[in-house]
């Protein structure tokens, strides 16, 4: 749902740019405190993966397709803020190099998908996954959050279109939310499949907020997170 130039009124895109610049700044600040060394290459891999996966449109119903958003996937592995930055990097790159999403609409696209979709999605995931100790809760949280992230982003997109006077809210909101409720099912299936593989092979890659040191962490990690928590 990359918004092109021309869909948003000047006031709308200027305001969403301002919110997104603030959101990215805040995310950089929050990420600096929690970014562990092992997460640096993971952020590279996630950026590459989200970019590649977003190229793969899958059909959802007659004549309509959707693709992975990847925000919840990134946030489950990197945490909400590094996840949001990963999505923002992908969206900026897609806009500047591939003309996917307009430059004026970039602020809205970053807000909908990287900030609301990713950080908001992570919030829902966290409520269900709790301390990540239970695999089933992690997967259930991932599924629900993945679906919500897509629907939430589409609702915000609809609101921006309505505020811009591009389409009446009463029509564009149900239309966007309806189609994206279907695309969100694809998002949930893909995200849960990937997280299932990661839980089986490298469960330590699942992001755990500071303070929830679990047995699956190595001693070195426990010590360093304890040290971070104290400082």
């Amino acid at each position, binding site marked *: 749902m990359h918004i092109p*130039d021309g869909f948003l009124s000047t006031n709308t895109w200027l305001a969403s740019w301002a919110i997104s610049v603030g959101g990215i700044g805040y995310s950089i600040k929050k990420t*600096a405190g929690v*970014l562990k060394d092992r997460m640096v290459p993971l952020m*590279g*891999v996630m950026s590459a*993966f989200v*970019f590649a*996966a977003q*190229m793969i*449109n899958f059909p959802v119903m007659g004549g309509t397709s959707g693709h992975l958003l990847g925000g919840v996937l990134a946030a489950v592995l990197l945490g909400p803020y590094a996840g949001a930055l990963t999505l923002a990097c992908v969206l900026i790159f897609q806009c500047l190099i591939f003309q996917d999403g307009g430059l004026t609409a970039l602020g809205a696209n970053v807000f909908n998908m990287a900030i609301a979709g990713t950080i908001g999605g992570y919030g829902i995931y966290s409520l269900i996954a709790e301390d990540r100790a239970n695999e089933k809760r992690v997967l259930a949280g991932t599924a629900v959050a993945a679906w919500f992230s897509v629907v939430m982003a589409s609702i915000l997109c609809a609101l921006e279109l309505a505020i811009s006077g591009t389409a009446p809210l009463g029509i564009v909101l149900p239309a966007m939310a309806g189609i994206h409720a279907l695309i969100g099912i694809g998002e949930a299936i893909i995200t849960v499949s990937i997280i299932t593989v990661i839980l089986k092979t490298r469960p330590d890659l699942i992001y755990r907020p500071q303070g929830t040191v679990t047995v699956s962490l190595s001693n070195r990690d426990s010590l360093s997170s304890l040290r971070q928590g104290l400082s």
Partner: protein
Amino acid sequence: MGEKEILMGLAVAVLIALLVSPFASPWPDGLERVAKDQGFLEKGEEPPVFAAPVPDYSFPGICNKEWATSIAGFIGTMAMFGIGYGVAVLIKRRKR
């Protein structure tokens, strides 16, 4: 993350971009569909504010559409890995 896992993760991303992207569904996405149905699609069809070098994930100068997408996907994925990694390194450095 060990070197082996980084390479494996990157390999998965590259293979998706290289081999699967040419066969992605050409149908409009959710937003395009709604824009088409509600008649505001043409609002987004004026020339963009900024002309990107590789519009529509089609690498310029390659006649075969599948190859053009595949190559754009490959280069984009490799570049995206470098950008994501680089941003993480910069944020980490900023902390100290």
